Structure formats: C-alpha cells, structure tokens
C-alpha cells in the first residue's frame, strides 16, 4: 500500500510539472458554461432582466401593455421600469436592461380608431434569450389586440412565452452544470489515461513490473492521484456555480465524492480502452472517437432537457450520462444510497480488469 502512495505522489508531481494539458481540458467546459451563463444572465433559477418602457402616449393602451409585462410568467422574468426614450437608450447601451419598448404618442387614440400604429422595441444585442422573449411576447400581445379592435373595448392582454427551458426544479444551473462539469471530467479522464502510453513507451511500466511492488498498488496510486484531481475540479466547479449561477447544492461533500468516484471510473474505462489500442496514435484516435459522441449524448454540451427525447433517453444511459443524472440527484439531495454501492462495485470491477490488463500491456 505504501507503493500506492508513492505512485500517487509521482503522478501528482508530474501533473504539476505539466499542467497545460489539464488546464486545456478544464478550460473548454468552463468556457462553455460561462458563455451559457452569460447568455442566460446570472439570475440563477430563471433568466431575469429589466424591460424599459418609454411611454409617450400616457393613455390606457400603453398602461395595459406595460401591465401585461408585469404579470404572470412574464412578470417573473422582467422587472418593468418606466423611463424616457432617451434615458432608456442610455441604459440599454450600458447593458442595464434587456429591451426598451417605446410607445409613441397617440398610441391609444390610434388603437381605438383602428389606425395603423408602430411600436418600437429596441433589444440589447448583448443578450439573446430575454430580448427574444420580450419581442415574442409583444408580438403576441399586439396580434391579440388587433384582433379585438373591432369587438369588445376592454382588452385582456395575454402573454404567450416561448417554451421556457429553464423551468426545471432546481433551476437552470442544476441542469446545465452537471453535464458541463462531466464534459471536463471526461476529457481529463482521457488525458490522464493517455499517460500509461507514455509510461509504456519509456519502459517505466516494464520497470515497475520488475520490482517487488505490485501493479495493483501502482494502479491504486493512479486512482488516488486522479481522484484528487477530480475532487479539486469538482469542488471548484461547484463553488463557481454556487456563486455565479446560484446553484443549489444539497450536500457538497457528497457531490464532490460523486464527481471523484465517477471520474475514477471513467479514467479506468479510458485506460482499458487505450491499452487495447495497437499504438499511441491509435489510442488517441480511439479516445477522441469515443469521447466526443459520449460527451454530446451525455449532456455535456446541452442538458438532456434540450435534447430530442429519444436521444436524451440514450444519453442518460451512457457512462457519463448515468453519472450526470446521479450528480443532479446528489445536488437536489435525492440520490438513493444504493447508487454509491453500484459505483463502488463498478470501480472494483474496473480496477481488477485493469490490473490484468496493465500487466499484459506492460510487456
């Protein structure tokens, strides 16, 4: 067992000397997560923004329009702020709002007398989703309003919001983060596993096999080092999501433990895959072939909720998808304890298979 610790120390030391690969693989999912967060805004559970209304009409029509944005599901998404057109433009330019609605003077009068009237909406180009929602909602309202012009004078405006993909329990962060995090974990598992090829090529692996130390302990050392790497990345990812995306974490240590254990499992799987290859180049190719589709299916780029249903149900049974679903349960505090048992059993089997495999691989 002492040799396991020595081996872990050796692997960590080497990782510290060459952190570039690792950092690259962390950077990609972080980048995607940050971009997604920026697009959806930092509001957490739901995107939330400010809708500016410059009312030059001061009539009943304008008031109703303004009120419509302040009610129901739209009301949860938008804080409506009255302002002047000029001031509104300034705020928009500074990125303080999602959109500006300019209601022209005489809007109510034109509406009542069925004259054509134009309402101007200015969108914040830096945001994507919220301005879209605002515009869509406004278009619906105006459609409805036009169709009622001839009939009843009392207009009940109703907002139809484009299907909101963030209305999941636990919110937007809880469905986005686990997949993104596991994209990083998967990439890193592949990169760490690739190291056995370097050890084999240099002959270090063969040299280990000529010492009295066991290859089992050698592998345990690798798992200790990998677990530490995955724990640090997992903890950092969760902390960042907690702060930036209002992620709710029911049990932080359990979540980190789950990420580390899943990472080790993926690492062993990737190592088995790579050591089955006939050369280092083939191993790299094989890794890429396997990683990208699995990451895609396993909710790395888009959460399962955003995928077509058949794809999502396949994705949830990919190795990483399975881990992602259970991480989501850990975050929500609803993971059955039996899942830990399943994970432990899977790790043990993978470890035993790897010992047999690495001896053959070394020679």
């Amino acid at each position: 067992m002492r040799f396991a610790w020595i081996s872990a120390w050796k692997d960590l030391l080497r990782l510290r000397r060459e952190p570039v690969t690792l950092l690259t693989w962390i950077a990609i999912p972080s980048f995607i997560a940050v971009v997604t967060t920026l697009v959806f805004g930092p509001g957490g559970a739901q995107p939330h923004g400010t809708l500016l209304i410059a009312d030059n009409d001061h009539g009943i029509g304008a008031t109703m329009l303004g009120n419509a944005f302040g009610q129901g599901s739209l009301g949860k998404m938008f804080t409506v702020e009255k302002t002047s057109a000029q001031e509104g433009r300034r705020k928009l330019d500074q990125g303080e709002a999602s959109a500006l609605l300019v209601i022209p003077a005489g809007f109510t009068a034109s509406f009542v007398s069925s004259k054509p009237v134009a309402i101007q909406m200015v969108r914040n180009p830096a945001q994507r989703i919220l301005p879209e929602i605002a515009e869509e909602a406004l278009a619906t309202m105006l459609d409805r309003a036009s169709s009622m012009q001839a009939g009843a004078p009392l207009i009940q405006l109703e907002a139809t919001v484009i299907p909101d993909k963030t209305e999941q329990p636990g919110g937007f962060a809880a469905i986005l983060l686990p997949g993104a995090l596991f994209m990083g974990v998967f990439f890193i598992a592949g990169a760490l596993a690739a190291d056995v090829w370097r050890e084999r090529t240099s002959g270090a692996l063969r040299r280990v096999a000529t010492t009295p130390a066991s290859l089992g302990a050698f592998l345990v050392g690798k798992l200790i080092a990998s677990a530490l790497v995955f724990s640090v990345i997992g903890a950092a990812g969760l902390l960042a999501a907690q702060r930036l995306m209002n992620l709710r974490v029911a049990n932080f240590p359990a979540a980190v433990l789950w990420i580390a254990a899943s990472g080790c499992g993926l690492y062993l799987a990737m190592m088995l895959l790579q050591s089955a290859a006939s050369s280092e180049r083939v191993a790299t190719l094989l890794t890429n072939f396997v990683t990208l589709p699995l990451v895609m299916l396993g909710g790395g780029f888009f959460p399962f909720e955003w995928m077509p249903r058949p794809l999502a149900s396949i994705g949830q049974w990919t190795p990483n998808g399975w881990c992602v679903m259970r991480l989501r349960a850990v975050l929500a505090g609803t993971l059955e304890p039996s899942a830990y048992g399943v994970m432990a059993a899977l790790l043990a089997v993978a470890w035993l298979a790897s010992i047999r495999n690495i001896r053959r691989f070394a020679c």
Partner: protein
Amino acid sequence: MIEVEQLRKQYGDFTAVHDVSFNARAGEIFGLLGPNGAGKTTTIGCISSLLAPTSGRIRVMGHDVVSDGVAARRSIGVVPQEIALYDDLSAHENLAYWGGAQGLRGSKLHDRIREVLELTGLVDRAKEPIKQFSGGMKRRLNFACGIVHEPKVLLLDEPTVGVDPQSRVRLLELVREQARAGTCVLYTTHYMEEAESLCDRLGIIDHGNLIAQGTLKELRSMLGERDVLRLTGAFHPDRVREALASVDGVEIIHADEALLSLAMSDASHRLPLIFGALNGAEVRGTTLTQPSLESLFIKLTGTDLRE
C-alpha cells in the same frame, strides 16, 4: 546467483530463446554476447519475471521467478535497455520513486540516493528535470536507479549504448565495483571489446541459441589458440592455396585477390616461412591478431557480429 535451466521463450511460432542454460555466481560478471535480435533482452525479461517463460526454469538467489516471483524480484536490480525513467521528474525524484518501489524508505533511502548520485556523478544536476539531461547522463541515471537498493543480482541490458567513451569507461568501472562488492552481474552487450574486458565468464547467443559459454580463456582455446594473420595485396587465390599447402599447421580462413586470412599458432615466429611460401605475391599490409571473441564468433556463427 542466477540459475537458468533450459529456458525457452516463444512468441507464437517464433522461438526467441531456445533452451538456454547457464549459471552466474555471486561476485561474478557473466556476459551475454550476441547481435541484434539474438534474444538477450528476452532472456533478461524472463529472469526479471517480466516475461513468462514458455518452458524451463529460472531461479534467482534460490527463488523460482515464476512461483516465487516477489521474493526473486526483491533481490534483482534491472537496468533496462531503454531509458525507463520519468522525464519530467528530477534525478533525485526518480531515484526516490524507484528506490521506494524496491521497498527502501526513510533515511536509508535518502542515504542511498546520495551515494548513487555521487557514484554516477550526477550530484550537481540532481534537482533538475531529467529531460534536460544528455543521453549519457540519462544512461547513468538509468543505471543508478537499478542499483539504488543494492541488489544481490544485477541485470544490465546493454547499458552503454550511446554513451561516449569517457562515460563508458566510468560506467564499466561502476559495474566492476558492483561485482567486487559481491553482486552477481548479468551483462548483455553486442560490443566484443566490452565483453572481453569486463566479463569473467561469457555466453555467446545467436538466434536464441547459446552457442558457447565459458571463461574468455576457455572460449579462446576453442579456437585452438591460433592467431589470425591478415595479408592485403594482390594474390592469385589458387596459387596461394597451392603454395601454403606445404606449410604445416596453417589454415586458410579466407582467400581472394586482395585479402588473405590465415589461422595458425605462434604466427609471429612463422612469418618468414609464410612469406617464403608466398614468394612472388605482392603483399602490401600485414595484420596479426590474437584469438578474439570476434574470430570466435565468426567461427561459431559464420557471420560477423556487426552486420
């Protein structure tokens, strides 16, 4: 102590090592001399229990390497043919890792690391990553990692390949020191001179067969203690054969228009006789070589070691 009995190693239908037997004793340097692909590394692989023998038996310090592998490996130090080190670790860290793998720890490990760093002349560069080392320095560290735990049996697989003459002399001296301290050393090489100057006993291996073994003296006597006389110039091979037939105890190893190789005992005293017999031939150069492994190798295998 290494005891190899009827070792055979097959890769599929191909036999890399064919019923090889030899013993190497404590304090002795046993050389395995053979060309590329002869089966030297395979033999060492089987002794270090890296490869499973197809048949035969190997014992190291009395422990069977198959049934009692861990005990056997405890007394073995291996210096592989390739530089089996971690490039991004320093010399010190490499030694700590490989020493640790051999079960060394604490102050014992520390002391040994210092000792072997001094022995191999790497003290000054001990802290930098070895990817900055020259090839020769890496070779020395490769050696150091094999002896850090003071093994009773040391397996050296062509440890001087790619090393400059100065470092080579130093490395060979280190090997001799190990043997003097009582270590049993198995040394593989394809350099004749190295084998001649270093090894107490030798096995000559070719195509997986151990074709001769013994001390240098014993091997020489297999050649009949004869010197080899090489004459260059312009000859008529047929006339030469005729002329030399009358001279007693001279064997023609080779004869063509430009080169004549003759084997005989006590050649220096018989030069006048030879020249007399070759009367008329145009001799431009004469080289006299004492029996060497090279000539033995050629005699045994029919090929030059450095093909």
